[in-house]
């Protein structure tokens, strides 16, 4: 109960002389500040490292800055994906009232895979290029968001609406789409399959700089809206009865949050491809490190963690192991293992 109370920002508490904030003790507050400082430092270090490390041209010359400029794109992509995945997953888990789900299993990725596979299937290896371009990118985002909204509208509204039913049906539809994609992939020639496989693993290299003018505003707007709704998310986390009693329409708020989540996930997936367990990994770590239930404090930690994980993984793999293609797969592997550990250690869902 104590943590539940702590999660509700107490505006009038100061007047009563007793405060109840996000942290139980001053030590916890200091710890949080320290964590944020550390993460900021690490995030900045990994991003700056990605920008300037291993630059063959001497520092300060025109060539040096040109190479840095070329690398800015991938850093921006990492930032967009980190912000989108972290914010979306934390908000989604709160809306679903369940800490072990992630929005990416809900059909976004199957839809992306299906679209990419269909393109290659119909147009051959040229299909991948046919899907590149700003209108195509926008179309994919609209398609994925539309799919999610249709699903919410169908299964979450009305008196029979249920979050679990919606989740499960999303997963099952994703599975059906996956079956179709698998079948089409079998009919591809190995060389076409190679071209396709490169697109089906989330990778910063998939992103085109020309998408960024569209992706950045979408991502920033949706996540900023979620940040401003952090207090409402706190109330949402209390469950439908408490939320309704406190004056936050639970179902309506849930739908709004899920809509924003859909926009974020669609943007991230259309930009770089599937990253199934990145969001889950980051959200779990963020709750662990922030050690509070207040979304105003958890969300920034989640975003910073995502930047550190994604940026750090790219930096290490690129400059230490010279294997940047494997980044997303390794993140998946680590995220998946964390998922298993959390599952077995946690006593409830």
């Amino acid at each position, binding site marked *: 109960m104590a943590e539940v109370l702590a999660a509700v920002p107490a505006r009038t508490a100061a007047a009563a002389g007793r405060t109840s904030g996000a942290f139980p003790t001053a030590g916890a507050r200091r710890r949080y500040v320290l964590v944020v400082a550390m993460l900021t430092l690490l995030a900045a270090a990994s991003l700056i490292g990605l920008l300037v490390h291993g630059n063959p041209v001497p520092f300060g010359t025109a060539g040096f800055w040109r190479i840095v400029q070329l690398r800015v794109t991938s850093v921006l992509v990492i930032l967009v994906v980190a912000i989108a995945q972290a914010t979306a997953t934390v908000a989604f888990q709160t809306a679903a009232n369940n800490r*072990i*789900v992630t929005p990416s299993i809900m059909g976004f990725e199957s839809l992306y895979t299906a679209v990419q596979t269909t393109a290659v299937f119909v147009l051959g290896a040229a299909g991948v290029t046919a899907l590149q371009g700003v209108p195509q990118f926008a179309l994919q985002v609209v398609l994925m968001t539309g799919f999610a909204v249709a699903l919410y509208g169908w299964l979450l509204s009305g008196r029979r609406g249920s979050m679990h039913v919606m989740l499960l*049906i999303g*997963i099952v539809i994703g599975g059906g789409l996956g079956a179709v994609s*698998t079948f089409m992939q079998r009919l591809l020639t190995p060389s076409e399959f190679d071209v396709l496989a490169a697109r089906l693993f989330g990778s910063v290299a998939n992103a085109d700089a020309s998408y960024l003018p569209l992706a950045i505003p979408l991502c920033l707007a949706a996540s900023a809206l979620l940040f401003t709704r952090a207090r409402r998310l706190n109330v949402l986390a209390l469950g439908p009865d408490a939320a309704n009693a406190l004056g936050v329409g639970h179902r309506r708020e849930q739908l709004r949050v899920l809509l924003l989540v859909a926009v974020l996930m669609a943007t991230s997936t259309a930009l770089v491809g599937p990253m199934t*367990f990145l969001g889950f990994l980051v959200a779990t770590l963020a709750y662990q490190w922030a050690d509070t239930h207040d979304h105003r404090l958890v969300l920034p930690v989640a975003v910073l963690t995502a930047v550190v994980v994604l940026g750090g993984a790219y930096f290490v793999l690129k400059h230490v192991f010279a294997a940047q293609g494997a980044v997303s797969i390794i993140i*998946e592997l680590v995220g*998946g293992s964390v*998922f298993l550990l959390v599952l077995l250690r946690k006593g409830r*869902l």
Partner: protein
Amino acid sequence: MLTLRPRATAGRTLRPVGRRARLFDPALLVGAVVVAGLLVLSLFVGVYDVTGSADGAEMFAITRIPRTTALVLAGASMAMAGLVMQMLTQNRFVEPTTTGTTEWAGLGLLAVSILVPHPSIPLRMLGAVLCAFAGTLVFFAFLRRVSLRSSLIVPIVGIMLGAVVGSVSTYLALATDTLQTLGVWFAGSFTSVLRGQYELLWIVAVVGVVVFVVADRFTLAGLGEEIATNAGLNHGRVVLLGTVLIAATTGVVTVVVGNLPFVGLIVPNVVSMIRGDDLRSNLPWVCLLGVGLVTVCDLIGRTIIMPFEVPVSLVLGLVGAAVFIVLILRQRPRG
């Protein structure tokens, strides 16, 4: 050790059986005739003309008979595996595909192929069965530890678990450059079932016989640990036996045929919707319907783009997803 929390019962309230169901009734006979008709059809559907050609009889023996036998064995055993799993977990939405068991079997298969250069089929099977067993135990261990507020959470977690295991397999396959091969293995298909290659599938027939013999115990275990123990059942041992049977079936079928999604989910649910929950008298029905479903899907897959074939797992995946969604929607609380 292996006990499951009774609190997971929410999804599986046993349906009453009316009067004591007889093991054999006339309807079963009709069903058997229909399925037998489908099997005969399966024997004669194909690009190669087995009745007219000179070597027709030989081709018939090499491909058609093994294929049809495999349909019977795989369909019946996967349906039974799903049924046993649903009994043991007391959850209607559980079956090898929604708990990650299939993915574990695939991982085992892949691991053996990476560790041993040219593994024999029995060796691959051993890897798949062992991994499937370990994976099912992990899932059951998880179910034991957590208390569940909704029966729908179980398949959600199971599918996520499957995705985790699948991502490990994908990583291994990518690292060893066998991604497309992995896809071919995983897509369940009876195309490659030929004489001399499928005989190990008969193992699942043994599993089926065991399920028939201990059916009553599984029914009792399905009432929950307390009731089962009260009735004199060693609950832990029955759960362990069930896990072994499920793992053996999934592993063997995955190696010989591939992934057959949703068979274990649709068939027992449809049977229980019509007949209530008495495992012993339902078992023949589950077998029949399992065989019928897989045969129909295989026939569709064989004829839809003749002279090529659609893998049966694709047809099952689509049909299964649709039926699964209907099942979920049906059990929604009425508003």
